[in-house]
């Protein structure tokens, strides 16, 4: 069978920010790095034409306390400065992905430098979804009051993104909202990426992982040729 280090000798990976070192993390049994995740988020969101893909650093910058993405950011209300920075990050992603408009936002999240999961805020379906394959963590967090759940800040972010889109979304202390918020949905998706709700290609890594990893590697090699 083909091995990545075999490919390394035969192929040149010539993509922005993807070094051989990053490319090798697609290898079977390896942990994927941020460059690979960001590459595919940008590529697939660009293809989707409806989903804005934020990079893997967004969550630790705006949603959590510190880079481990374990505890929600203690800020009660994101300040105006935060809001303008969120806007700039969205603009950067929109430009990189050549999007004219977007109706959902995809956020890859790296937890404790060991686990990838993702959030998707969908304005068309009015849903905030978390796709996390670690059941124990989401069930435990779900026992907490809403404001202490680790992904609660996505609600605040939804309000801000609503303003970026020019629509009013009010989730705080609003029991009558038509939005559905499930901070810990039961979806087993590795790569933390993608779902049809987000109009992104679906990648279910529950089964034969090696084949899917090879497919990603091949996609990158094709893109770089």
């Amino acid at each position, binding site marked *: 069978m083909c091995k990545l280090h075999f490919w390394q000798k035969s192929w040149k990976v010539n993509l*922005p*920010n993807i*070094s051989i*070192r990053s490319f090798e*993390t697609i290898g079977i049994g390896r*942990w*994927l*790095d*941020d460059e690979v*995740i*960001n590459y595919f988020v940008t590529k697939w969101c660009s293809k989707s034409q409806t989903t804005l893909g*934020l*990079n*893997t*650093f*967004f969550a*630790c*910058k705006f949603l959590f306390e*510190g*880079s481990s993405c374990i505890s929600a950011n203690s800020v009660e209300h994101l300040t105006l400065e935060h809001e303008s*920075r969120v806007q*700039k*990050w*969205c*603009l*950067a*992603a929109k*430009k*990189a992905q050549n999007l004219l408009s977007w109706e959902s936002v995809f956020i890859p999240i*790296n*937890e404790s*430098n*060991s*686990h*990838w*999961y993702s959030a998707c805020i969908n304005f068309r379906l009015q849903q905030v979804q978390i796709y996390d*394959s*670690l*059941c124990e963590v989401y069930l435990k967090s779900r026992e907490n009051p809403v404001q202490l759940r680790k992904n609660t800040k996505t609600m605040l972010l939804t309000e801000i993104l609503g303003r970026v889109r020019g629509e009013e979304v009010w989730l705080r202390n609003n029991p009558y909202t038509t939005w559905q918020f499930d901070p810990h949905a039961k979806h*087993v*998706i*590795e*790569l*933390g990426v993608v779902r049809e709700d987000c109009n992104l290609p679906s990648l279910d*890594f529950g089964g034969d992982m090696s084949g899917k990893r090879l497919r990603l590697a091949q996609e990158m090699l094709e893109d770089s040729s």
Partner: protein
Amino acid sequence: MSEEDQQVPPTEEDVKGDNTPINVKVVSSSGEEVFFKIKRSTPLRKLLGAYANKVGKQEHTIRFLYDGARVAQTDTPKSLEMEDNDTIDVMVEQVGGCSP
């Protein structure tokens, strides 16, 4: 990359137009700030090298972002239209797997 001169500002840079140095603040995700003075035409990869050196990390583990956009190897303060006292966010490599 690593084999190149990591001094900031470099001496050999092409001086065209307004190349007065600007102050750039590099802020880590934990909020630590490091200040640099850099010419507008100096590629920011040199700043990355200098930063990595300063904090004792390997260059390939460091990511620079300006207003949420990844700073490319060839970007300069001029090409990004940076202004004096602008901030660069510095993030470090992330890795992760999933539950089986």
